[in-house]
């Protein structure tokens, strides 16, 4: 049975993180340092030490999940601990900093840490929300199956168009060839459709054949529908109707594929913030620790 990272080991790491958090808060409130609360008191050093070690350990997840041969706990357990203890670091480090901020490398480390943690929160949110959506969207098909179906539909629509006339075929073929799926990271994330179509001259769109926007295959469908309206009776109307049905099926399928790509992109994109920033944080953390002892 699949168990979520939240409930791993009966929520073992939830309780560890909660105890760590509450203990830190209690110690902070109990501690009456001479002068304002500070990272340089004994409690400050303790919280800072715990925070730094936790950050180093949290970053080890990146290594552990690649070490397939490792048997130091399961990746599942590591991830569960990563999530809960990562959240606890937010509290521990904030108390270590004692709410002091400034234009310095110490606050830089803190800000980077906050960004890393919150990008992690987004990742948790994405993993809680999107897999269900993805399953619904795919309705049992794989991405490959969906693309194969698109190809089948393209071939089918070409065969149908072939029976109508050369211009319609050219339109359908161009629409198929210039159908755009995915693309750069922004197109994937936004689910943007950059499809185009070359509209042949006979469709009465201007003086020459023209490259037009075909988002959601709408232009191609509209032109085929227009041709159908202009055609009177006969087998051609039936073929046009068939063509329209095929194009509409493809339209719906493409929509699902784009949704699927978008969800995958969202499930991935936060890592492109989370991972690089955590390396920036590691550098800032090293600088923080070294610099406070250089000027002790």
């Amino acid at each position, binding site marked *: 049975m699949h168990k979520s990272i939240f409930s791993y080991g009966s929520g073992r790491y939830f309780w560890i993180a909660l105890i760590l958090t509450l203990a830190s808060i209690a110690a902070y409130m109990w501690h009456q340092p001479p002068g304002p609360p500070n990272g340089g008191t004994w409690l400050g050093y303790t919280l800072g030490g715990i925070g730094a070690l936790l950050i180093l350990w949290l970053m080890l997840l990146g290594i552990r999940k690649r070490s397939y041969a490792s048997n130091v706990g399961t990746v599942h357990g590591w991830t569960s601990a990563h999530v809960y203890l990562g959240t606890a670091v937010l509290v521990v480090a904030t108390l270590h900093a004692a709410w002091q901020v400034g234009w310095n490398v110490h606050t830089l480390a803190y800000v980077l840490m906050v960004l890393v943690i919150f990008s992690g929160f987004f990742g948790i949110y994405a993993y809680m929300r999107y897999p269900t959506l993805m399953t619904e969207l795919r309705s049992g098909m794989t991405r490959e199956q969906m693309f194969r179906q698109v190809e089948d539909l393209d071939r089918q629509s070409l065969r149908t168009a072939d029976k109508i006339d050369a211009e319609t075929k050219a339109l359908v073929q161009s629409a198929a060839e210039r159908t755009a799926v*995915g693309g750069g990271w922004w197109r994937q994330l936004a689910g943007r459709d950059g499809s185009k179509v070359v509209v042949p001259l006979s469709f009465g769109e201007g003086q020459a054949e023209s490259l037009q926007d075909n988002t959601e295959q709408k232009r191609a469908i509209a032109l085929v529908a227009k041709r159908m309206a202009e055609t009177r009776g006969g087998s051609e109307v039936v073929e046009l109707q068939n063509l329209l049905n095929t194009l509409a099926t493809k339209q719906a399928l493409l929509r699902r594929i784009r949704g699927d790509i978008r969800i995958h*992109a969202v499930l991935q994109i936060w890592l492109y913030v989370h991972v690089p920033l955590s390396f920036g944080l590691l550098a800032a953390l090293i600088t923080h620790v070294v610099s406070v002892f250089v000027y002790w």
Partner: protein
Amino acid sequence: MAYLVRTIENRDEGSFEYSDNEFPGSTITIGRATDQDIQLTEIEVGLNHASISIRGNGRGAIRDLTSPATMLVNENVVRSASLKPGDSIKIGNSVIAVIDPPPGFDFALTLERQDAGGDESVPGSQYLTTLEQTSLHKRSWSWLLFALVLTLFLVIPGLGLLNDQVQSMSRSTPLPDDGAWDTGPLIDAHHIPEIGDDCNVCHVKPFRMVRNQQCLVCHEDIGRHAEKDAHTELDQALCENCHKEHNEPPSIVRQDDALCADCHMSLDSVVKATVLRNATSFGEDHPAFKLTMLEPVLQGDATLDWRTVRFDQSSPIAERSNLKFPHHKHLDPEGVKSPTGDEVMVCSDCHTLDAQGLLMKPITMEDSCRRCHTLVFDEDDPEREVPHGDPDTVILALEEYYSREFLENSLDEQTEQATESIATTQPAADESDMSDKRRKRRKRRRAGTTMDSKQRYKVLLLARDKAWEVAGQIFEKTTCLICHEIARENESEPLSKWRVEPVRITSQWLPKHQFNHYSHRAEECTLCHAAEQSEISADVLMPDLQSCRECHGSESNQLATTCIGCHNFHLAAYGRIGQ
């Protein structure tokens, strides 16, 4: 003309099959229709898709006949193109390559069909559908950011520590310098040009806490906490142990009781010889005040000198200042007698704050008493007063006064007898005006008469008797005795001098304590000092621990009072820290 079409069939993995067909003619038609020279069966291909016109010697030209054009020549979509050996054409999924014609042919091409299920590629693989395929790169970005942060904020400022040139360059350009390591603001007092933004004024050596020498450059006069060698740990303590800079909010002086209680909770075990009693906090654990008072050193009854004595406030004690002063009479709400009638007095008529606002200025006769307590000795001559000082001076002043008075009087008598008086036209009523009287006398003296020495001796004797009589009066009955302790050296001898016991009023009862009268100015003096009930000057009017605790340091009120609130840590009396 003749041309060769070589069809390549992809059999199994890595094995091909060729079939050559020779055709006559100068045009090659390509399409899906059955009448085409090269028939491509894919649905994407037009019935009559393209045609090649052969120019000979392996060269030709191709033209796409469909609209829009979908043919690729050398990977470019074109409508028409000239062809030479080495060019490749893609129509649908078939690839046509122009090759060098074998002998006997004007043109030759190979045809490789990829339509018959030969497409092994994964559906959708022509699209970018994952973020890994895009321009985003986790790994390179990670190391880039790591290197960037480390270089900017650790390496460059760090190099500045090793090399002065790098440091001055980084400080004078937008490059980050060691200011990026600043953990918080300095206190206002440390914003001075001598420090500026230069960390190394105080932080002289990396990885070492700031040494005392750096602080003592400016704070050279700062006092020790205890005598040198009284406590080794204290002698070796760093200023920085207590005074932490770069706090937020800026603060540098420790206010907490723990600083003191650390040792003073059982000081007797830390410093064996101490006379100080243990304390941990003012509100809960503080010994009764120990008052320091001036006490006369006597020889017989006479005060020879003064010494300070310390005693517990709980023991009964009387101040012996040799001054008589009933506070209750001076603070009588009905008023107290003064030269200008009854006057209601308040504490501040006599007790005023010193410049620092901490203690009261010492009471002096001139400032506080003399306005009412005049030293007039002759009611007929209220302008004349004896000096406030030692008895010899008083007697001398009186003798001088009366000698002159008597001499002038006797001169008056002689003048009147010897000459016709150069009578004054002044009426007798003006005699009361002393200054006029004196002027008159001087005028008369100018008339020029003399006394013989016998007469003068007689007058002087009379004057001395009068002076001593008046002295006896003011010392023993009217003036001095009111405030002072008076004794006579030898009662039986008529010219025995009086002795006024010297007066010293204790002004600093709690010398180890820094009481700020100014900050208590909102309260009535009598809240702490029971002056209105005090009838004699022997009363010690110092408030006790309990009366301070009514406002300070106990749980029932708001005014938390720390040790530093009353006591100084650095005490100049023990010498300077640097020595």
